[in-house]
């Protein structure tokens, strides 16, 4: 039988990770692009920054966030003894 307090801790930390992940997601999905016009006056390695963020920047952030998320969730599962056996 799995310890109830471990389950509660697991779900609390999982929710926390979800909120952090979705905050990053929200910023790079919506906030950054809302201000594209202003960002375009900044030049980033030759690109107008607003264009760059839509063409490449946000996408790179999404990929990195996801690999980080996978690692962080794995750690939560292991710490709480709820990870799957290999």
């Amino acid at each position, binding site marked *: 039988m*799995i310890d109830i307090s471990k389950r509660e801790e697991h779900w609390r930390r999982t929710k926390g990770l979800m909120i952090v992940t979705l905050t990053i997601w929200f910023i790079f999905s919506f906030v950054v692009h809302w201000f594209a*016009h202003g960002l375009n006056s900044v030049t980033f390695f*030759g690109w107008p920054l*607003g*264009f760059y963020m839509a*063409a490449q920047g946000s996408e790179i952030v999404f*990929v990195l966030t996801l690999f980080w998320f996978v690692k962080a969730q*794995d750690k939560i599962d292991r710490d709480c003894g709820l990870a*799957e056996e290999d």
Partner: protein
Amino acid sequence: MANNKSSAFIDNLPKIYGMYTGGFLVFVLLMAILEQMGVSADTIGILFVAFTIVIYAGIGWLSRTMAVDAYYVAGRQVPAVFNGMATAADWMSGASFVAMAGGIYFGGHGYLAFVVGWTGGYILVASLMAPYLRKFGCYTVPDFIGTRYGGNLPRFLGVIVLAVASFTYVTAQINATGTIAARALQIPFEVGVWFGLLGILLCSMLGGMRAVTWTQVAQYIVLIIAYLVPVFWMSNKQGFGLIPQFVYGDAVQRITELEAMWGLGTLPAVSGAAGGLSALSKPFAAASDSAMDSWKFVTLVACMMLGTASLPHILMRYFTTPSVRAARQSVAWSLMFIFLLYFTAPALATFTKLQILDPELATGIIGKSIADVQALEWIQKWHNVGFLQIIDANADGILQLNEFFMRGDIVVLATPEIAGLPYVISGLVAAGGMAAAMSTADGLLLAIANALSHDLYYKIIDPQAETKKRLLVARILLLAIGAAGAFVASLKLTSILGAVAWAFDFACSGLFFPIVLGIWWKRANRQGAIAGMVGGFVAGSLYLYWVAPAFLNNTPWLGIDHLRFGMIGMPVSLVLMVVVSLMTPEPDAETQAMVDEIRVPSGDTVLGSSH
């Protein structure tokens, strides 16, 4: 026995697909040699498309199965990285492959909302959905909805939304396979559509999800090679840089200068071009500073992202991994493999635009004499098939920006020719487009047929049906839905892009909140889910009917046009689901315990491995 055999296959996957990739490259090389020996371009095009389809069909045949869990979830043994490739092929449609770079070419920054929207949705899939649905152990998305909320009505509604969203999408894919097959094999479009369908069914009929998985991995390898090789080659040949994706910033700035030089936005619109062709009229990099344009950008992003996380043909790919952990890893790999194509498309659009606009490059055509431009081989070839048109509106014999019309698809299809690459590259691109359209069509057809056979037939109509009969029904449905899709596609009702965006809007309007709240909110109950699905789906659909140019064509409310009707469906769905759930009794203890169970990665799945 069967298990040992299949686990040896799983262990050898890197070797098998490594050899496959090598074999494909050898084939490309062979075609290049044939081209040098004087074999005609048409023959090479036919060989490319025919050879790859035969390979996919062969994989489909080898993966045939009579086991329920192999048919529905590939036996739940697809490793994370390979499932990532299969998902990427499942995801990237004919539209992503052929039309995306062209969309960026014409739409500039505004169109990039699709690129952002079609990548970021995977964050939602990984953090909110996939691992929990994997732990649940369902075969289909309505399987989750039906079990979580109880009763046949929620399950039935889930099937309806799934079928509408996926069917809208699949007709566009069959249309694309038809277009490519027609061009490569030189047959009429109406025949090409049925030929494409035949190829699609050969991959999925006998082996269900197992066959689709292994063909999709093969199709991903072909499509990514076919997309990247021409772009790298073009970039290096034209001296744009070794890795084009990292160096096109200056080219973007140069385009902005050229747009000013050629008078973009000041030239009068020229009329008389054939349907589907357009001239450049929007600035490339500039983003408008009006709040309305920012709003339109983010609403399109939102609909595409939440739609990503609700499209059943994507979610069901994560039911095939060996574990919950592998499901999560697999989402990250999926996005990585999708990213490879999506971050290349803007680079391709930029360099193609530069090659056409820049008078200092040998390829530049704007500002040149029209007689010279019309003598170019690629201009003649694509003019003959109706993909581009030149209208000398001011009769000065010089090509202006507003006098050159083309179809967006040209950006991908004609890159090899504009940059003067050998024809073998064009054949490769045709094979890649075919792989992209076929793999998506396969996943969609299977999603619809599985929902109908598992949820409608087995769970609702005949729960006593034996395995053999269930799998026979599943295959008959696959055939019937494929035929219906090909029939609708042959009528050519919508443009490819309209239909693709609609699928996302349908999916997020009807399914997003019932799935997410089913996992994250224990209090969500049957009545709430029914209200959320019906309300969101009906509100979204009615609004689409009200606003779409093809129907009533009213002025969009708050800029929410037919591409964004999920912005109407989703809030209705959320509010109804929460309000109705709170007004009715909470779910029973058993259901709440089930929700607790799916939140824990370890332990058995909630539903048995064969159900």
